[in-house]
C-alpha cells in the first residue's frame, strides 16, 4: 500500500496538479477548464492530467470533441484510511493517558 501511495503522492507534489484536483473535486471538468486558472496551454494542462491519470487519480472520457476529466478517489481513500486508523489509535492512547493521570491525581489528594 505504501508503494502505491508513493505514486499518488509524487503526482500530488506539484501545486498545479493539486489545484486541478481541487477543481475536479467540485465535478467533472474539460482539460480547457482545468487549464484556464493557470494561464496554461492545452498541451501543458494535458501533460499534468496525464500525470494524474498515471497515478490513478483522474479518469478521462471523450464527450463529443471534448475530453472530460473526473476525480478517482480510491488512492486518496487509502491515504484517508491510514490517517483514520492512526487517529483512532492515538485518540485511544491519549484517553488512557488522561485516565492514568486523573487516577494518579486522585490518589495524591
Amino acid at each position, binding site marked *: 500500500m*505504501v508503494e502505491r501511495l508513493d505514486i499518488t503522492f509524487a503526482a*500530488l507534489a506539484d501545486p498545479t496538479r493539486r489545484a486541478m484536483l481541487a477543481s475536479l473535486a467540485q465535478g467533472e471538468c474539460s482539460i480547457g477548464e482545468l487549464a484556464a486558472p493557470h494561464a496554461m496551454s492545452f498541451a501543458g494542462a494535458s501533460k499534468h492530467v496525464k500525470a494524474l491519470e498515471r497515478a490513478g487519480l483522474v479518469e478521462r472520457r471523450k464527450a463529443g470533441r471534448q475530453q472530460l476529466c473526473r476525480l478517482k478517489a480510491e488512492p486518496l481513500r487509502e491515504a484517508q484510511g491510514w490517517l483514520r486508523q492512526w487517529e483512532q489509535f492515538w485518540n485511544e492512547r491519549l484517553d488512557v493517558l488522561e485516565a*492514568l*493521570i486523573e487516577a494518579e491525581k486522585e490518589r495524591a489528594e
Partner: protein
Amino acid sequence: MTPPIILTVSRDFDAAPETVFDAWLDPAKAGKFLFATPDGEVVKVEIDARVGGHALIVDRRASGDARHHLQYEVIDRPHRLVFLFRADPAGEGQWTRVSIDIAARGAGATLTLTHEMDPQWAAYEDQTRKGWTMILESLAKVMADD
C-alpha cells in the same frame, strides 16, 4: 519528491506539562497507556530515555507478541519529545516519526501529537505539508458526500 502524510491529534490535560511529558518516558506509565491493547498484556517495557536511545514495548496478545520499537530523536522536557516508531505488525523496516509538543495552558497542558508516515518526509518544508493537508481535507469532504 513525495509530500508527507501527516496526522495531528491534540488533547488538553488537567495536569502540568511535566506530568504529561514524564508519562511517555516512565516505563510503568508507558506500559499502561502507550501500546497496551484491551485484550493484550504488556509483558516488557524497556526505555532508554536518551537521544539515540531505543525503547521496546512488548504486548502479549492471543495472536502472539506485538513488539513495538521506538528510537528517541529529541528529548526536551517538558516541551518536546520526538521518536521514530515502528509499530508491530508493520511493514518490515517501516519507521514512522511521532512528535509530541506540550504547551502550558493555565494550570494544565495541551499536547499536540504529530505522526508522519515516513521520516524522510520530515525534511519537507511547511508549505508542502500545508498544501498536502489542505487537499486531503477538502477531498475528505467530497468523499464524505459520496
